[in-house]
């Protein structure tokens, strides 16, 4: 498994794809940080809200990068004609899946490291740096594991890379839909259930409670149930499905 993971990391980072994505990510964070720090309109945001906004962007985009890398993991090998050679080696499909998953998660790890100075810069005035970084690390890691596992699951069955990437992005957009609902639709027991059940909105709420509202990080742990459950269930599912269903031609039968 270590050999596969190391090769995945080499392909991703020395091959240049990871560096390009990280550069684009840091550019995005720079723009967001510049706007919230200088734009007059955005200056009306309370200081804590600017930190929250930047952290939400870092978590969402960092996890998205992990999803993109994971969605390419198996279907990409299939499409490039390199999967058969891998399947012919004694490496088990479980090891292959785990190596791919860890490789994809490295994008989130690097994205978070890149986000640290931006968060520090914005949060230093309100003594929020430690809480913001800890919350971001926990929520972001859970969401990255969930989304990367989802990407691997889709990639195992997708017959082409295009299908895998499109489906992964479509599902991600669907998960973001509740954030666009009017605020009155997010209230009441149904709205609350929707927000809590969706790992993305639940994670976002938890970050908001700690960073914007100044709650102790132990006060709203119930909001982490969905991200935690989804990360665990999808990671186990991705490994189990990958171990059993990685096939040369994709699809559910082979």
């Amino acid at each position, binding site marked *: 498994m270590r050999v596969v993971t190391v090769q995945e990391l080499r392909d991703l980072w020395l091959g240049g794809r990871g560096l390009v994505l990280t550069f684009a990510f840091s550019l995005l964070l720079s723009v967001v940080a510049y706007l919230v720090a200088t734009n007059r309109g955005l200056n009306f945001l309370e200081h804590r809200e600017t930190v929250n906004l930047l952290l939400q962007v870092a978590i969402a985009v960092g996890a998205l990068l992990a999803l993109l890398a994971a969605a390419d993991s198996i279907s990409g090998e299939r499409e490039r004609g390199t999967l058969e050679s891998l399947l012919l080696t004694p490496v088990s499909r479980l090891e292959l899946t785990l190596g791919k998953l860890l490789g994809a998660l490295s994008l989130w790890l690097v994205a978070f490291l890149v986000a640290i100075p931006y968060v520090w810069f914005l949060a230093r005035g309100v003594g929020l740096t430690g809480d913001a970084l800890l919350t971001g690390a926990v929520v972001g890691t859970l969401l990255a594991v969930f989304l990367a596992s989802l990407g691997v699951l889709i990639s195992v069955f997708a017959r082409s890379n295009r299908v895998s990437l499109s489906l992964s992005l479509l599902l991600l957009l669907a998960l973001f839909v509740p954030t666009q609902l009017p605020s009155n639709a997010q209230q009441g027991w149904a709205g609350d259930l929707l927000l809590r059940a969706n790992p993305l909105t639940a994670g976002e709420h938890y970050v908001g409670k700690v960073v914007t509202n100044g709650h102790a990080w132990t006060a709203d742990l119930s909001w982490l149930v969905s991200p935690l459950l989804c990360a665990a269930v999808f990671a186990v599912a991705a490994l189990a499905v990958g171990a059993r269903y990685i096939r040369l031609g994709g699809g559910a039968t*082979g």
Partner: protein
Amino acid sequence: MSAAVEARGVEKRYGSLVAVADLSFEADAGEILGVLGPNGAGKTTAIRVLTTILAPTRGTFAVAGIPHTRAAEIRRRIGVLPESAGYPEHQTGDEYLRYHARLYGRSRAGARAVAAVLLDEVGLADRPRSLISTYSRGMRQRLGIARALVNEPQVVFLDEPTLGLDPAGQRQMLAIVRRIAQERGATVLLSTHLLAEVEETCTRVLILNRGRAVALGTVAEVAARAAAPRAARLSVPAADKERALRALAAADVTILGAELEGARLSDAFLAMTEAA
């Protein structure tokens, strides 16, 4: 089961489509068995079943003495050049071989050593640190063969290794195939639809048609089974050609044709391109 490859009634179906039907044959250690057949005959499917990539619908087989139920053990003992194999464009040939050697459990140093030996063996020793994206088709195919040998396999499956190669590349590839059998003592299953390759290289041939084996034996045996000989070929030194023709004519022998070997278009092409 003691042959290097032994198949008994192997069948592979995709729903109602029968890709391989009732395939039974044996291949001995060190022999080169040509697997012949038109497009869609089931050659690639048969190889994918024998290399454990696809599960058979019915039947049994053993490779290197290992029954098909122990797929992981079979994979440790075989080398495969798949049809239309892809290669990671951003890796160098050396990196690619080292990675695959590591996947077979070799240490870093062991992987480096085996990669160097194999690159030399397939004629890529002068380009170990070139990106695979800069390799020609022939170089990629040779790299694929080198990859198939990283685990010192007992049985090597080559699926259309000469596809898309020019005559010089084909000849180079066939020389490598012969060396694999002669010097390494490995059994080679060579899938192709080029008959000349098989005649030159293989000890025996297996002909598939519509998923079924229709012939198995030496080239002479298979040819004899299909048709009665229509002509005999006689070789004499080129300088004696005219004298031999006159002698045959004097003996009232019907001469169907006469040509000088080494004067065919392929010979001229090779002579001109290899000299250049």
